[in-house]
């Protein structure tokens, strides 16, 4: 729309920009870099660091570009002597009280203040006075504070209030006495709290577990995917030699924006605890150390005679899933299962994924949470719901009366509350309603008619229209959507897994699924492929070590149906071998049809079979949407939430010391659970 465009000049270069931008944003479009500390494009504008000064023609003084709206014909100068002198002055003021402790500061080498001081700093200070010292504040087990370094940009305060939705941080006092703190120095109770570490432009807020561990230039960067929930947040894994030292987010505007959950950011110490590093075989009711040759020989003999069933766990990548499927096809159909939690689905993709693109959640004006606690299952999706809530969306909740960081109207325990008149009224008024059906109900639904009825309900109230499908299914597992796309489920009529006749199977192969320990498999011979010693491993007859997601390449499809790649960061621990290569060896010895010799061959075969998966970063289109059938009824089932403790929801975080500290200091302290309204 040309109405919204205005002509301005940046350093005498004429450009056309949207009139609703600020001077700083226009300068960036023009290719001029503006130094800043307090401004952040995901947060509200504060304008308190004054570093972004620019000159505007006819204005008597320098102006802070981040707070200045554009005007037609404005001429902005960013490179004059006056601007430079102004910024130098601001920098000198910022450095009056900033300690010169860069050599012992964790931010050193990736510090905004350090970088910008290279351009605008002086080589020596003109101040002889003592620097001010500030007591460090407690912010919990994740965020380390050295408050003397703080330059009061208030990014962390704005983040906690606006993004995390927990107004617990604030700036007390004023002037020289100003201090950033949490209310009464309690721990931050957000699942996104670690992001303040990235936001802090100086070394005031740093990572507690990463403290004094490494310098940024020593680290090797690997791009990967968060597999601890189903959102598929983009992460970068920083490692030195064979050890991961920290995990930080990669920006992806379609998924996680710039944030990641505390679980993936801090549970990496669990990657190295309780690892299965060598094959084990059960002898006299006790697992004892074995080797690959022996264990595979035993397994091969069993595979010759017994009929196997394969269970797929929550962290299994697509290539592994495909190899498992291919291996198991030698034993017939319907013998691979990833829905071990009885996840009810219909035949098409739109019955088990989040159909609304994640970045569109914030546009909803009505959100109905049905049996899901997004705050602890998928904190990133919760942040997006919070954004919608701040745009005046109304949020209803059905299931348990969970506490979230925004207000919800609670309607009751059972699925049939979807017919509550308050919801119907709101749905009729709403222009962009959104329903999220969570695992708490999906895992309990026994009757396909209920799922079909949900679709007809959504159709009736315009949640599903020709243009959009806002009926969403949310499960917290990274592997689930992808494994269902390649068909790793026993029953295409979508009966719950518990209906499967287990008597037919005599051998269970579990790929990281703890459900192998279930009573129903007591009479089977159990083989566990996994990386951590958990209940699944303890009860098995053979335990084979496999690599973690950071130790191999793999593809994951996130909850909205977007395939992404997690890359290998370092070699597997101990003698762990990738699942596909184990299966390859077995099938060679059993003379099965299992072609791929390398991982790349396996991946290209997977993409040949399922071309929709090869388009990384694009949302998969639904080929055959569910046909809408008349509404019948919602069955009565009690919600049972899949995640009860955010910090310990899977085998890796259960083994993390940092996560254990979080449980101690954040969850177990009851007074902290009371949210300030």
């Amino acid at each position, binding site marked *: 729309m040309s109405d919204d465009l205005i002509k301005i000049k940046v350093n005498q270069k004429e450009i056309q920009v949207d009139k609703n931008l600020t001077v700083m944003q226009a300068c960036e479009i023009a290719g001029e870099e503006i130094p800043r500390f307090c401004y952040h494009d995901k947060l509200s504008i504060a304008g308190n660091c004054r570093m972004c000064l620019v000159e505007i023609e006819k204005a008597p003084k320098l102006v802070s570009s981040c707070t200045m709206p554009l005007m037609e014909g404005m001429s902005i100068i960013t490179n004059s002597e006056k601007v430079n002198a102004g910024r130098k002055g601001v920098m000198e003021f910022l450095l009056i009280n900033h300690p010169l402790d860069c050599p012992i500061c964790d931010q050193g080498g990736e510090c905004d203040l350090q970088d910008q001081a290279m351009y605008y700093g002086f080589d020596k200070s003109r101040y002889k006075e003592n620097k001010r010292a500030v007591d460090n504040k407690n912010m919990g087990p994740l965020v380390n504070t050295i408050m003397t370094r703080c330059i009061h940009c208030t990014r962390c305060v704005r983040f906690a209030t606006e993004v995390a939705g927990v107004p617990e941080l604030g700036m007390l006092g004023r002037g020289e006495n100003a201090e950033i703190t949490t209310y*009464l120095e309690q721990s931050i109770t957000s699942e996104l709290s670690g992001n303040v570490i990235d936001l802090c432009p100086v070394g005031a807020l740093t990572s507690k577990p990463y403290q004094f561990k490494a310098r940024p230039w020593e680290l090797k960067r690997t791009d990967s995917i968060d597999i601890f929930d189903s959102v598929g947040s983009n992460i970068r894994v920083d490692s030195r030699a064979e050890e991961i030292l920290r995990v930080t987010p990669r920006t992806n505007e379609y998924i996680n924006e710039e944030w990641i959950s505390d679980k993936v950011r801090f549970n990496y110490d669990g990657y190295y605890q309780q690892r299965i590093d060598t094959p084990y075989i059960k002898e006299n009711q006790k697992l004892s150390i074995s080797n690959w040759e022996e264990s595979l020989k035993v397994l091969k003999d069993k595979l010759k005679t017994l009929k196997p069933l394969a269970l797929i766990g929550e962290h299994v990548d697509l290539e592994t899933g495909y190899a498992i499927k291919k291996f198991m096809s030698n034993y017939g159909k319907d013998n691979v299962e990833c829905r071990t939690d009885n996840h009810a689905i219909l035949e098409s993709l739109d019955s088990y994924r989040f159909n609304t693109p994640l970045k569109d959640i914030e546009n909803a004006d009505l959100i109905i949470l049905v049996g899901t606690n997004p705050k602890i299952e998928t904190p990133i999706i919760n942040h997006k719901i919070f954004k919608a809530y701040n745009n005046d969306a109304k949020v209803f909740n059905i299931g348990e009366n969970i506490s979230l960081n925004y207000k919800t109207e609670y309607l009751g325990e059972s699925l049939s509350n979807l017919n509550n008149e308050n919801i119907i009224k709101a749905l009729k008024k709403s222009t962009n309603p959104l329903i999220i059906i969570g695992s708490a109900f999906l895992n309990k639904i026994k009757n396909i008619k209920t799922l079909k009825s949900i679709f007809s309900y959504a159709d009736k109230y315009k949640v599903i229209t020709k243009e959009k499908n806002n009926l969403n299914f949310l499960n917290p597992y990274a592997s689930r959507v992808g494994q269902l796309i390649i068909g790793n489920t026993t029953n295409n009529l979508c009966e719950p897994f518990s209906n499967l006749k287990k008597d037919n199977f005599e051998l269970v192969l579990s790929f990281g699924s703890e459900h192998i320990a279930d009573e129903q498999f007591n009479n089977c011979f159990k083989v566990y492929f996994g990386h951590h010693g958990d209940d699944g491993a303890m009860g098995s007859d053979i335990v084979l070590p496999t690599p973690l997601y950071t130790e191999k390449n793999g593809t994951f499809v996130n909850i909205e149906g977007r395939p992404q790649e997690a890359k290998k960061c370092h070699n597997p621990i101990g003698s762990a071998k990738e699942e596909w290569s184990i299966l390859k060896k077995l099938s060679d010895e059993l003379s099965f049809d299992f072609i791929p010799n390398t991982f790349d061959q396996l991946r290209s075969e997977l993409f040949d079979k399922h071309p929709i998966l090869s388009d990384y970063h694009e949302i998969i289109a639904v080929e055959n949407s569910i046909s809408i059938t008349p509404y019948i009824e919602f069955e009565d089932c009690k919600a049972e939430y899949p995640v009860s403790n955010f910090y310990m929801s899977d085998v890796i975080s259960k083994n993390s010391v940092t996560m254990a500290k979080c449980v101690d200091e954040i969850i177990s302290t009851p007074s902290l659970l009371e949210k300030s309204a």
Partner: protein
Amino acid sequence: MSGNHPGLSNNFSRSGEKFSWSKDNLRSIKNIISKYPKGREQSAVMPLLYLAQEQNNNWISIECIETIAETLNMPKIRVTEVASFYSMYNTRPVGENLVQICRTSPCWLRGSNKITKTICKETKCEINDTSDDNKFTVVEVECLGACSNGPMIQINNDFYEDLDEESTKKIIDNIKEGKPNVIGSQKGRRSSENA
């Protein structure tokens, strides 16, 4: 000004007693909140802090902050921020009489140093300190806006102007003995008329 000034400390403490609004205050709160548009009730935080301080022996405890946050339905940290920003909200207990001595240039030129010394001597407490009998807390403050009548002090809600050592001592003595004091100029001036 040192961080020990009761109004300029960022450290809040609990009084250990429950704080709930008095009946009178509940009525005033209703009146105050009605001045702001609906949904903007949080704007009333400053008058409410003032009421709380008055009701709570002239200081803001954590209990006060929590009660205000609840009354106005706002995060506790936001109330804390406001209470710590303004020096006239005392964040720790003060004596029955909070003596604020103006030390800004006009009063200082007219001898506020002597007044400070006299007050410290008579109340037996140092600056930013509370006397042992909890009768007085003495603090130095910047301009209180009565420059033409300097040197001056403020005790609780009252100004005492045109002071010298003698009149200051008398004011303190009267307070100690529970006798009434003449408020305003101690030289009999009305307002700031010519002496």
